[in-house]
């Protein structure tokens, strides 16, 4: 059974187009901008997985199946192909390491006779890899992947495939000497194949929990397969940490692979994040797929034009009202006097929290003393001391209290050299995760070296960007733990709490 859905946005764009024709009949219209496409939903044949990916696989979408070796990525791919074939949806299965007859044997081992579908022209299985056995290859880094793009495109067109499986990207890239070039050129492959009205599934071998690949940012959905050894028993869990235009699921469901198939058992355990993750800005919580989890390192990038204080104060006040311990690495911008003044202006009383010691200000560079004294103290204190102070303060709040750390990185990046700064940020991030705290680090992205910014982004779990352009303020999310990201949204500042409002 096929479900053809016209994307809501297409309706909106179509409506806008006709409206513009009525209102501005003589206006020149750029026809190239008007692209409408039908999104088709492909049921996977595994009901629980369909529920996890918002009904099924979508054409024009690219999904990655991530997991360690032996997690069952190829097996899941086989079952996804079988699910589509059972609905007479044509499938192209590209293997980068296994010969086609071996893939057919895999299908057979699960009692899935695919020959009939091959004969009927509904399934094409092929092996494509850079290196063939016995072949001598000399490689350089100046190439593109138009060879494989063309070959897969022809196969799709020949059988009008709606589902393309590429198993595995890791093995494909491993054949290249210039892996970074191959990886970046693979983006063209994803763009081309998904533009052909197909759903593309790529499998990636990696630890699905600790590693996030460059490809994660490009795909529309991530299916993570995790294997754990608990009491000498291998436990397999499946989750969907990223899903475009849908609220990501943070639940992990157990799954088994037997001869009967790929079975997913609905989780009986609690979601991964059980604590209150609210940021105090309801719309932001929804956009982030439920808020910001404990153990998250949040990088708040600002463009220098915008006043980030309303955002910072709203977060700060929210965490204080939730009885969290707050540590502020104070500096010229983020100091106690200014914070108190701003809160007074916003009619928020934080005197009780100050009195009870819920807020601690750490001045790493001793701004309160004279410049000469500050330099002497700075020379005496090393990186380890700076880190140790924060850790001691986090411990001082006690194990029952959740801790949130705020800091403006402007001072750190100016005072410390590049190596020390990155080391400080990395170790501080490690401490945040170790203590299950949350850190918010503010940085002016225009005033920092791009290489440093790239390193900060890699270390951070969540990246929120605040910017001001043409007298309007914007917020956007470039990365998050749940995989939920969103494009720039207009924000308005208010005098009272919450001092920031996202206009949808």
């Amino acid at each position, binding site marked *: 059974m096929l479900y053809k859905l016209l994307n809501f946005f297409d309706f909106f764009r179509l409506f806008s187009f006709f409206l513009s024709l009525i209102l501005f009949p003589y206006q020149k219209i750029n026809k190239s901008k008007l692209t409408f496409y039908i999104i088709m939903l492909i049921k996977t044949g595994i009901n629980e997985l369909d529920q996890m990916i918002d009904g099924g696989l979508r054409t024009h979408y690219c999904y990655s199946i991530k997991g360690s070796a032996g997690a069952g990525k190829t097996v899941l791919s086989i079952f996804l192909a079988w699910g589509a074939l059972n609905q007479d949806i044509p499938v192209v299965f590209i293997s980068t390491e296994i010969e086609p007859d071996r893939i057919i044997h895999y299908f057979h081992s699960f009692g899935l006779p695919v020959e009939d579908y091959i004969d009927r022209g509904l399934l094409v299985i092929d092996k494509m890899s*850079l290196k063939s056995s016995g072949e001598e290859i000399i490689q350089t880094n*100046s*190439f593109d992947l138009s060879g494989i793009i*063309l070959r897969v495109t022809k196969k799709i067109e020949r059988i009008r495939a709606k589902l393309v499986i590429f198993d595995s990207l890791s093995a494909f890239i491993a054949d290249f000497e210039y892996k970074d070039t191959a990886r970046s050129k693979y983006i063209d492959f994803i763009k081309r194949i998904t533009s052909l009205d197909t759903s593309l599934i790529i499998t990636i071998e990696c630890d699905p929990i600790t590693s996030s690949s460059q490809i994660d940012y490009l795909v529309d959905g991530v299916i993570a397969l995790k294997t754990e050894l608990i009491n000498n028993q291998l436990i397999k869990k499946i989750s969907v940490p990223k899903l475009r235009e849908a609220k990501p699921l943070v639940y992990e469901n157990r799954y088994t692979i037997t001869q009967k198939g790929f079975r997913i058992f609905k989780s009986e355990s609690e979601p991964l994040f059980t604590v209150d993750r609210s940021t105090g800005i309801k719309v932001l919580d929804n956009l982030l797929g439920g808020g910001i989890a404990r153990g998250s390192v949040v990088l708040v990038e600002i463009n220098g034009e915008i006043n980030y204080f309303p955002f910072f104060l709203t977060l700060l006040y929210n965490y204080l009202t939730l009885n969290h311990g707050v540590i502020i690495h104070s500096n010229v911008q983020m100091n106690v006097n200014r914070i108190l003044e701003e809160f007074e202006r916003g009619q928020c009383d934080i005197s009780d929290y100050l009195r009870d010691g819920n807020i601690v200000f750490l001045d790493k560079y001793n701004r309160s003393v004279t410049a000469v004294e500050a330099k002497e103290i700075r020379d005496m204190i090393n990186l380890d001391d700076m880190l140790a102070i924060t850790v001691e303060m986090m411990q001082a709040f006690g194990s029952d209290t959740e801790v949130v750390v705020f800091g403006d990185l402007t001072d750190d990046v100016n005072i410390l050299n590049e190596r020390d700064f990155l080391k400080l940020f990395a170790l501080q991030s490690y401490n945040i995760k170790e203590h299950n705290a949350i850190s918010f680090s503010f940085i002016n992205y225009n005033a920092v070296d791009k290489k440093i910014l790239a390193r900060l982004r890699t270390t951070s779990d969540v990246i929120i960007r605040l910017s001001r352009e043409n007298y309007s303020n914007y917020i956007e999310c470039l990365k998050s733990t749940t995989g939920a990201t969103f494009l720039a949204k207009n924000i308005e500042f208010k005098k009272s709490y919450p001092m920031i409002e996202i206009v949808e």
Partner: protein
Amino acid sequence: MHKILYFKSKTCNWCPFVESILKKIVSEKSTLELEVIDIEENYEIAEKYNIIAVPTIILPNSTKIVGATDETFLRQQLSFFL
């Protein structure tokens, strides 16, 4: 006669440069022959030779060169046939 197969595509930025070098080398030696194959027009041949990336050169001894190279390197690789 030693045959060199050269696979190119219209989207490849380096292909015209490599093609001009190959044509120059081949024109200097009568024992060498060059077959230029546009993969978009000759998909079956690209399939037969397992072409994944372009430019790809297949030398007479079946060695594959994947990616653009300079003239010196190509002459060095072809020295045996020159």
